[in-house]
């Protein structure tokens, strides 16, 4: 039913994402997009660290790379990651949005335009408002929206901003998010 999962986060989200990747079904039939704020100059190490316990391969896409199911794609440093029609990535070096490049808003918005109501959008812990508008777009197109419970976040700013802007479908603690992913194959038919 859902064709893609889109996760955005910043400060305090790394461990949550690593845990999600550790419980996600190995033969999941859709792609997972990760847009995490990251240090501009650190080109390697992030993907490797996330891959360590991940059930699915974690890669940083090249420009125009086709989107394949069963993989986690991490937005590369100092690029915006757009979802292009026709199942491709398009990278961009436009101005930062919400002081961020990659910007969660831009990835979320382009994903919402590409996948319409067949998208799940998740916002995790973070220190600025990036992503709240993108999550609203996903909600407007009829996709499923999940926000990490601010009480459960290392830094509340991002999740609170997202909740202010949209009436989301679920506010989950990390444990509930992990349960949701463990059950994912059975519920996503």
């Amino acid at each position: 039913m859902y064709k893609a999962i889109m996760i955005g986060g910043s400060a305090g989200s790394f461990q949550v994402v690593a845990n999600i990747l550790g419980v996600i079904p190995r033969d999941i039939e859709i792609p997972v997009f990760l847009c995490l704020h990251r240090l501009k100059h650190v080109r390697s190490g992030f993907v490797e660290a996330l891959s360590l316990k991940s059930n699915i391969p974690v890669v940083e896409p090249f420009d125009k790379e086709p989107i394949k199911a069963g993989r986690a794609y991490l937005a590369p440093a100092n690029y915006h990651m757009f979802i292009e029609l026709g199942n491709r990535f398009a990278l961009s070096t436009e101005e930062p949005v919400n002081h961020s490049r990659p910007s969660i808003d831009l990835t979320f918005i382009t994903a919402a335009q590409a996948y319409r109501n067949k998208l799940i959008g998740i916002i995790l812990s973070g220190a600025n408002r990036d992503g709240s508008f993108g999550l609203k777009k996903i909600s407007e197109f009829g996709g499923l929206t999940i926000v990490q419970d601010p009480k459960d976040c290392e830094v509340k700013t991002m999740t609170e901003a997202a909740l202010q802007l949209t009436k989301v479908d679920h506010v989950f603690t990390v444990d509930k998010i992990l349960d949701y992913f463990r059950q994912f194959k059975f519920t996503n038919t």
Partner: protein
Amino acid sequence: MISLKNYKILSYVLLVLVAIITVAITNLLLNLIISGKLSEFAIIYVIVNLLINFTMFFLVFRIIHNLIEKDAELKEALEREQASKEIMEENVESEEIKKIDIEELIQQIIPPSPQNLGMEKFTEKILSNIAKISELVQGIFYVKNKENGEFEPVGKFAYFSNQPPKVFVEGETLPGQVAKDKKILNINNIPTDYFTVVSGLGNGLPRNLLIVPILDKEGTIAVFELATFKAYDKDFEKLFEKLAVLLGKIINKIK
């Protein structure tokens, strides 16, 4: 073809005209009533008629607007589908070429000046080059030790297990069987525990295994093992067969 914008303007103009006319006629009727030239019933009849006409026109106006917008939405959705298809088709074209150019791909796999690299670097380069042209998850390159007949793991790709890959002799374990049979083995969807026991790849996640023997005049001199999430198809099997033939000639010359 009148554009969407013009349709809308036209319908607003007509609406306003109808409204003006209705008001004018009502005004006229009121004047006639006051001067007694029309009976009340006739008046009521005419006014009700006018109101009904006005309402119907208004409804038709709304329906037309909705249709125009639906039409635009549909056209938009069709264009999006079309654009999607075009972009996806670009992808298909490059996949086709991948299938045909086996020779080119082999050139990309074998690193230049193998003698200068040494066996370990050479075999590791081969595995990492294979990873560049396909979705290789883990790989091991075994070379036969001529003195004791054991196949030793020399080159590795993305091998993260705590235990090193096991040494084997011909006939022993899955790669040993391939060395003995001298034929490529392509196994798909292996159950995970079976997979960890028989392959040298440790606690692997991938479910597909391709094992390729490399032969020279005397027999199998090396074996490489590739693990992937997605099984290699017939075209890749052909590619690796050809690669193995070339490697059979090169490997003996490397130290």
